[in-house]
């Protein structure tokens, strides 16, 4: 008899994803699908897809989804959650989306302790639009709008969202994972599980930041992109749990 040890979760559709080869977005999509299924919340989940490379995420998640305006995911998720409190609502956002145009929405969703789950994909670049500098771009990292590399004198420093949001009373769970190694992928899944469980248990605003490889706009092959995560991204964006008030 053949048994299946691991397969595509049913919380993902059969639509093949459009991401570049080796892109971290696909790994995180799968982790979200697995988590929804394992917590038995896939039938009442509602996702908010961003503007960015993940703009078609609504085609990949089998649950109901809306595709929001750039950066407004947390505001849209707020509206859905408040009108349908039984739904499990998540917003999926890139760094340009969440930490630039959508900075006000994410900060105030945390301030209000909205009972939503936010997945924040930090690839230190505007992926979809061709590699412009993001608020999370590293010092010295080359982007089309920072052709000589990000210079703090001109463009300031990278922003660490977990650390920043941890100062806000209303935020309840903040963790940062990566998807460069199987160990980090499995750790990130634990964080996602916690972030969704918190919503089920009415603990409130929970965000998981994921350091995610963008081989295309890092101008790297897939293995070089993993190396960039290890040697450049993680030193600037340390992995771990920054706040966990659900545990108290």
């Amino acid at each position, binding site marked *: 008899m053949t048994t299946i*040890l691991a397969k595509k979760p049913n919380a993902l559709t059969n639509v093949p994803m459009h991401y570049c*080869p080796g892109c971290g977005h*696909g790994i995180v999509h799968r982790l979200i699908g697995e988590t929804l299924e394992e917590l038995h919340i896939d039938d009442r989940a509602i996702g908010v897809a961003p503007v960015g490379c993940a703009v078609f995420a609504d085609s990949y998640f089998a649950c109901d989804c809306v595709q929001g305006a750039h950066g407004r995911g947390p505001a849209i998720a707020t509206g859905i959650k408040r009108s349908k409190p039984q739904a499990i609502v998540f917003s999926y956002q890139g760094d340009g989306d969440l930490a630039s145009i959508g900075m006000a929405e994410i900060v105030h969703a945390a301030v209000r302790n909205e009972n939503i789950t936010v997945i924040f994909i930090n690839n230190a670049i505007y992926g979809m639009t061709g590699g412009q500098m993001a608020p999370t771009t590293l010092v010295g990292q080359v982007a089309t709008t920072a052709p000589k590399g990000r210079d703090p004198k001109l463009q300031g420093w990278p922003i660490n969202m977990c650390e920043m949001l941890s100062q806000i009373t209303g935020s309840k769970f903040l963790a940062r994972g990566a998807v460069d190694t199987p160990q980090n992928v*499995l750790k990130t899944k634990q964080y996602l599980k916690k972030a969704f469980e918190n919503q089920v248990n009415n603990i409130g605003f929970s965000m998981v930041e994921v350091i995610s490889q963008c081989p295309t706009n890092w101008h790297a092959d897939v293995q070089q992109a993993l190396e960039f995560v290890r040697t450049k991204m993680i030193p600037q964006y340390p992995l771990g749990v920054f706040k966990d008030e659900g545990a108290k």
Partner: protein
Amino acid sequence: MPRIEVDANRCKACYLCVNVCPKQCLGKSKTISKKGYFPAEQERPQDCIGCKMCYVMCPDVAITVLKD
């Protein structure tokens, strides 16, 4: 016996699975897929231990891990 299957319609030949497999039992197909890639394939299923590391790293959810 554990083994894996790769869905050639989803695989984009990033070879994250090939590089992560602790038993080095995966390789690159010599046949081009409809998508235009040389998908990953299991060259030595007899070496597979069913650890799922390939599945865990696959960004295109192209891998199924089975046990016969």
